[in-house]
């Protein structure tokens, strides 16, 4: 029942022999040891496990790793520059106090990165709708929305 899976994660080709039932998030956290992607609810509701698959935000607990065969995956570890300089979206979260406990933050940032590509200057309402699949148990939504609006503008300005 083991399968061979290959994909790119944060630009690096990776492959492994896995049990076919291994979830993508399990592969990322336990095999690749990239633990920035979080497991919150494990029922595809909370979005803490959001990563980009071929540029699109998806919940990595909601699919088996084999569904990402051949795909390009970006996790929170691949977002900042190698020298540690924060991505504009990460910087916006820091500046706008867009996190409290920080557990949901990787998922929030990953979803926001994808959303901002098509929304260079979003309204609060658009951001709130885009966050339907991301829960924050500190209920810090107000500053998260502010962060994403600022981050999206900063990304557009940096282009």
């Amino acid at each position: 029942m083991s399968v061979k899976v290959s994909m790119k994660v944060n630009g690096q080709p990776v492959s492994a022999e896995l049990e076919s039932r291994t979830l993508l998030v399990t592969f990322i956290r336990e095999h690749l040891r990239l633990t920035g992607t979080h497991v919150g609810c494990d029922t595809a509701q909370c979005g803490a496990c959001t990563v980009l698959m071929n540029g699109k935000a998806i919940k990595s607990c909601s699919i088996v790793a084999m569904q990402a065969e051949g795909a390009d995956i970006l996790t929170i570890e691949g977002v900042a520059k190698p020298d540690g300089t924060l991505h504009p979206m990460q910087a916006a979260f820091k500046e706008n106090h867009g996190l409290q406990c920080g557990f949901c933050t990787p998922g929030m940032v990953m979803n926001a990165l994808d959303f901002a590509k098509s929304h260079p200057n979003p309204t609060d309402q658009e951001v709130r709708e885009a966050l339907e699949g991301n829960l924050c148990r500190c209920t810090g939504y107000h500053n998260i929305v502010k962060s994403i609006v600022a981050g999206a503008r900063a990304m557009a300005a940096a282009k």
Partner: protein
Amino acid sequence: MRAFEYHRPANLKDAVALAEKKDEGRYLAGGQSLVQAMKLRLSAPTDLVDLNALQDLKALKVEPGAVTVGAMVRHAEVASSSSVLKTLPALAALAGQIGDRQVRHLGTIGGSLANNDPAADYPAAVLGLGATITTNKRKIEGDKFFKGLYETALQPGELITAVTFPVPKRAAYMKFKNPASRFAIVGVFVADFGGGNVRVGVTGAGPCAFRQSEMEQALKKNFAPDSVAGIKVSPDGLNNDLHASPEYRAHLITIMAKRAVEAALK
């Protein structure tokens, strides 16, 4: 999750052959319903036949009178397709209201219809527009597809390949969302094809989607919000859960239908 064997066939014939050969074989589309059910061990297939390599199922075709959505087309693609937005905007709007953006990037129309969740959105459009579901074996009229709670006309191993929606003169979908899951507590799809051909598809309210013929009759005479506003729907047989009673759902059908007609006229 129980262990299973994973298959990724390269063509339709192999996919069907695999699913038919295994006693507990299941197709895997976006996994947004199936993988979640497997994690809870509500579903424990022995074999998963992944449809992601089947390019033929990913086509989205818009013609003057019809929109044909391949079974593997994701909700996000229907929601953002400029040709669907132009030809059948009510369908794009419906797809854009399914779940959240992460779910819409993976979930497919084939998976949604085969799954037939009582609160799923697409079934309302299938009935409201009189769609035809094409499988590897035959064409199934939308009106004959939904059989009951999670039950469809599909036979074991039968594979949906595409869904064809006729284009109406005007249409709209109104959904009263469950604020937590975003599924429909009640959703109503109203379409006017002209010449007295009006259809009303309701989802979320009963064990599976159904047509509301009393409203269709009233809208045939006069396609206006007031034609449905006074119709009192019976709560008999409607769903009862902690989110809404049958009486509340019955009430919502009238309200959503009225709002859908208003939106269709805009």
